[in-house]
């Protein structure tokens, strides 16, 4: 709560800079529009202005500033334009409408959640394997790291096509791409967590003659919970990115990713920005939900202080 004032201050500064940045960013178009409408601008001719800096042009043509904040397809939309679009496409549309961001957000969210579940499950299973089998640790870990250096956008279409050829369609392919991005942080965090108890804690269980299974259930697993949650927060954000990437090669018909893409086909910058912000808000909400679950669980476990 102590952060409210600083955050507001920072947001205010960002908004101010943003509005200012619209001037040089959009001034070229503003001048061209004005010229077409017969207003005199400095200098004349779009070709002439092409290599001029936006800042210089903005300074010499203060009369066109207002237009830089009100264009249809600006290079940088002004904050109020994005907000208006967000408002228009969430609150003002029925959630079942194709033009509603809530509708598209839900499509993306469902793939995200499914992918997150798959990825987290896989990550946990892999981590359990890795801490219990040296062979698995040594063979899998380097490749798990390497797998993350592959640009997912490049293989996403192939995953879709391959799955399609074995008859898997719809939500699942997107979820698998999203799982691919989210499993890695979970593996890393979970391995760390399962290994986090110190030697003494293991020794203690040995003096009780505890079995492997008991050691896992009574020591490793509870000890890993804080680590797991830390990874889940990274993982859910990665899942969302994965779901969006997965939407691009599925015909890009529905979902926030499709909104981003179709927005860019038609140069609808305002639509792109509002889809972007919707995504970020969705990510923030998801992370906050996990953080809430984390607080609750840790408190139950007596770890939250």
């Amino acid at each position, binding site marked *: 709560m102590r952060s409210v004032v600083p955050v507001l201050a920072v947001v205010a500064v960002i908004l101010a800079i943003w509005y200012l940045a619209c001037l040089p960013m959009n001034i070229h*178009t503003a001048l061209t529009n004005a010229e077409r409408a017969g207003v005199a601008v400095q200098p004349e001719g779009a070709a002439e202005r092409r290599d001029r800096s936006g800042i210089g042009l903005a300074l010499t043509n203060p009369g066109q500033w207002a237009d830089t904040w009100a264009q249809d397809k600006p290079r940088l939309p002004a904050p109020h334009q994005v907000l208006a679009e967000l408002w228009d496409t969430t609150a003002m549309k029925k959630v079942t409408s194709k033009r509603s961001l809530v509708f598209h957000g839900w499509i993306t969210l469902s793939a995200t959640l499914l992918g997150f579940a798959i990825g987290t499950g896989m990550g946990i299973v892999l981590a359990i394997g890795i801490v219990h089998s040296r062979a698995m640790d040594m063979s899998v870990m380097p490749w798990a790291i390497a797998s993350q250096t592959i640009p997912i956008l490049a293989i*996403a279409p192939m995953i879709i*096509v391959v799955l399609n050829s074995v008859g898997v369609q719809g939500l699942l392919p997107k979820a698998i791409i999203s799982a691919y991005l989210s499993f890695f942080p979970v593996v890393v965090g979970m391995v760390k967590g399962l290994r986090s108890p110190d030697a003494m804690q293991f020794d203690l269980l040995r003096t009780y003659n505890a079995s492997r299974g008991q050691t896992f259930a009574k020591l490793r697993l509870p000890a890993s919970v804080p680590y797991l949650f830390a990874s889940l927060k990274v993982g859910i954000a990665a899942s969302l990115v994965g779901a969006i990437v997965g939407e691009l090669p599925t*015909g*890009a*018909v529905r979902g926030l990713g499709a909104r981003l893409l179709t927005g860019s086909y038609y140069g609808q910058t305002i639509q792109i920005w509002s889809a972007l912000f919707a995504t970020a808000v969705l990510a923030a909400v998801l992370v906050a939900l996990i953080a809430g679950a984390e607080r609750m669980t840790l408190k139950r476990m007596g770890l939250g202080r």
Partner: protein
Amino acid sequence: ASHSDNSVKLQLQWVTQAQFAGYYVALEKGYYEEEGLDVTILPGGPDIAPPQVLAGGGADAMLNWMPSALAAREKGLPVVNIAQPFKSSGLMLTCWKDTGITGPQDFKGKTIGVWFFGNEYPFLSWMSQEGIPTDGGDDGVTVLKQGFNVDPLIQRQADCISTMTYNEYGQVLDAGVSPDELVTFKYEDMGVATLEDGIYVLEENLADPMFKEKMVKFVRASMKGWKYAESHPDEAAEIVLEYDETGAQSEAHQKRMMGEIAKLTAGSDGSLDEADYQRTVDTLLAGGSDPVISKAPEGAWTHEITDEALK
């Protein structure tokens, strides 16, 4: 694969828009249903290679530009053109007039945006016919891989960009540019036009009479859709809007697009014109150092389906 059922999946090569109005009209008006077909239309996008989808069994038929389809054929994916609803090409280069460009020779030293993804071939062979290198420098053109909007032109990052008469050109005008500020070069006019949006299927499937029969019905219904769309452009555009799930299309834009598309489909009854085919192949074979296809393809098209369909 079993082709005994009556389902047909069609892979488009772009997102839902009036470019594909004929198929949506046929679907909406029940022409497919009348033929006893259950048709699914799969929209495309920049990350979707229709031949790949076809190869993976994700679709029964695809729409494709012929250069791309012939290249796929040479890569070992035997696709066959069974119908050609688009008679003429809508591809063109759009340039700023104030760059001083008046003809192809003025491209030297300029920056030009080109679509890749299998669509660069017509451009490359045109340039090689003009004798202009495409690797930059003062004597050649600097080629950019253009994204799928007109920003590079509007932002003046490129002097010319690729546009379709029915889509991107309109977007340039929508951005407030008047046609007088632009110079355009239609591939059709330059003599380097290649065939666009044809219907392709896998060769091996054509061996199956059941499949063939399905395609006959499909092409017949599709052409009926096209002809209806041509004569009712506004209604067709509205149907397309109806099917657009992204909610990103605007009515004005689709109506204008439909108007332009109608001009391209006008001369076709669906059957491939051998002369057009030959011109396409010649253009591609003339391509520069890295030609799309190295030899004239065999069996890349068939009239069997259209002959049957148009009876």
